[in-house]
């Protein structure tokens, strides 16, 4: 008689709702897009307003016009937007470097990861310069050996479309270098070369180790973003193109 009663009691205990026996049973996961179907919470916009007005005053002045949208993912090996940045660094940094040292910059190398946004078609404002280059990085000119320049080509042959100017690199379908030139000529291992880059890469960023311990170093104290702003201000229409500076055959 007693056994008959115990069995349902035991069963009941197993099913009883005790907090200390709670166990993870089910997980739901998803991504929710933040878009204009959601309302804006007013207190946030009220908080942002004075800061936004101060920034907008400076950001919304139109500097140039872009004939089309440009993104660093538009093409492989070299991109119109990357070429624009590297070409602008050469155009604006070299006169300053030459004036100070009487030497000329041989080549420019920036990093793909440093292009932080796309450039829209249409009016280019100060804001676009901040979007593309939000970092406060400065242009540094590094004097490095021909041997280090060859190390640079070995680094670049892996294919990332790092912005470059004054470098010509051709790789084959195995990824080996077919042709490499700096400032229009093959690398002379006995010479030194002046490469313009930014302080992020000079300090070990992206493991561009060929920039470590250069022969000489000059901080131009000129921000990459300010070079872009000056370039946009001096050019009514922006229409850079992809070319053959770095290609795979």
């Amino acid at each position: 008689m007693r056994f008959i009663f115990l069995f349902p009691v035991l069963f009941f205990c197993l099913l009883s709702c005790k907090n200390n026996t709670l166990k993870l049973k089910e997980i739901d996961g998803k991504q929710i897009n933040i878009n204009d179907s959601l309302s804006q919470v007013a207190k946030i916009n009220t908080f942002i307003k004075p800061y936004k007005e101060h920034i907008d005053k400076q950001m919304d002045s139109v500097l140039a016009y872009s004939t089309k949208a440009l993104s660093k993912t538009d093409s492989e090996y070299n991109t119109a937007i990357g070429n624009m940045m590297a070409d602008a660094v050469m155009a604006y940094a070299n006169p300053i470097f030459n004036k100070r040292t009487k030497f000329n910059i041989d080549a420019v190398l920036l990093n793909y990861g440093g292009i932080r946004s796309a450039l829209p078609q249409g009016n280019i404002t100060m804001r676009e310069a901040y979007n593309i280059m939000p970092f406060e990085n400065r242009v540094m000119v590094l004097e490095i050996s021909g041997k280090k320049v060859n190390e640079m080509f070995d680094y670049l042959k892996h294919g990332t479309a790092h912005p470059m100017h004054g470098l010509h690199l051709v790789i084959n379908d195995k990824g080996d270098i077919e042709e490499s030139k700096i400032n229009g000529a093959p690398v002379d291992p006995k010479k030194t070369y002046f490469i313009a880059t930014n302080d992020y890469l000079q300090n070990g960023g992206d493991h561009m180790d060929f920039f470590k311990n250069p022969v000489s170093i000059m901080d131009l104290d000129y921000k990459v973003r300010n070079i872009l702003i000056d370039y946009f201000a001096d050019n009514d229409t922006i229409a850079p193109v992809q070319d053959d500076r770095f290609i795979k055959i």
Partner: protein
Amino acid sequence: MKRRNFIKNTAAASAFTGLSGSSLMAMKPKSKKHITILHTNDVHSHIEPFAANDPNYANQGGVARRLSLIEAVRDENPNTLLLDAGDIFQGTPYFNFYGGEIEFKLMSMLNYDAATVGNHDFDNGVGGLAAQMPNADFKLLTANYDFSNTIMDGLTKPYEIYKREGLKIGVFGLGIELDGLVNPKMFKETTYLDPVERAQDMTRTLKKEEQCDLVICLSHLGYQYESDKISDLGLAAKTQDIDLIIGGHTHTFLPKPVIAKNKQDKNVLINQVGWAGINLGRIDFYFDETNNLKSEGVLINV
């Protein structure tokens, strides 16, 4: 004595027989507990929505809209945690002009519970990060950056335990290797510790000692690499007792949360929601009473 036992047993037994099958089921929702995790990563100072002419993300993102979504979820389930996986700073003039003040104040207004430290959070130096800490009403969690020789000493914690409805949720942070990524002049004497070793220390503490019901890792390691660099997928495979890895750094738009296997062949959920506050991740955890007659598996709907 015997008689008392008998009466008690009888009462329990008749209570049981008095319950129909459906009313037994009806007890479940009452005792069931529900924890919601909302998360962002790599917001990069994107406070306003993208412009209407943006080539990739026109009219998406924006903190004011993010809050209306968060408020709706909190109305639905008050037991919600809001977390961020780092790279709060850098990306719009708000950071260049105000150094992260607006980002931290807004995250405090949104009632973020915790964030971890991304590489770009060093962009104004370890001192620039420390200067903004008074604006952070949330915890900054990192288990593998040793800040003890820097001005950030004491301003972060390796982990935090949140109690919601009697459940314990352990959250810890992991950061990416700084060498080669951040200018040493910026991170100064911050020491990077092995994330896998630190993750194991954290799970030992959170799962074994603190008996947390959920363990969440806020990771700025990155989702996946072609090289053998440690990533969220690598972390999941090399550790145990992590339920959810909220990732960042690689700006990966996972179409849905990924189910990976840990060292013990158990499931780990990994999620990352792109960047710039374009998406909000939502993970709902449902807890139920143990029922030894049923399988022990966790159903994952992604």
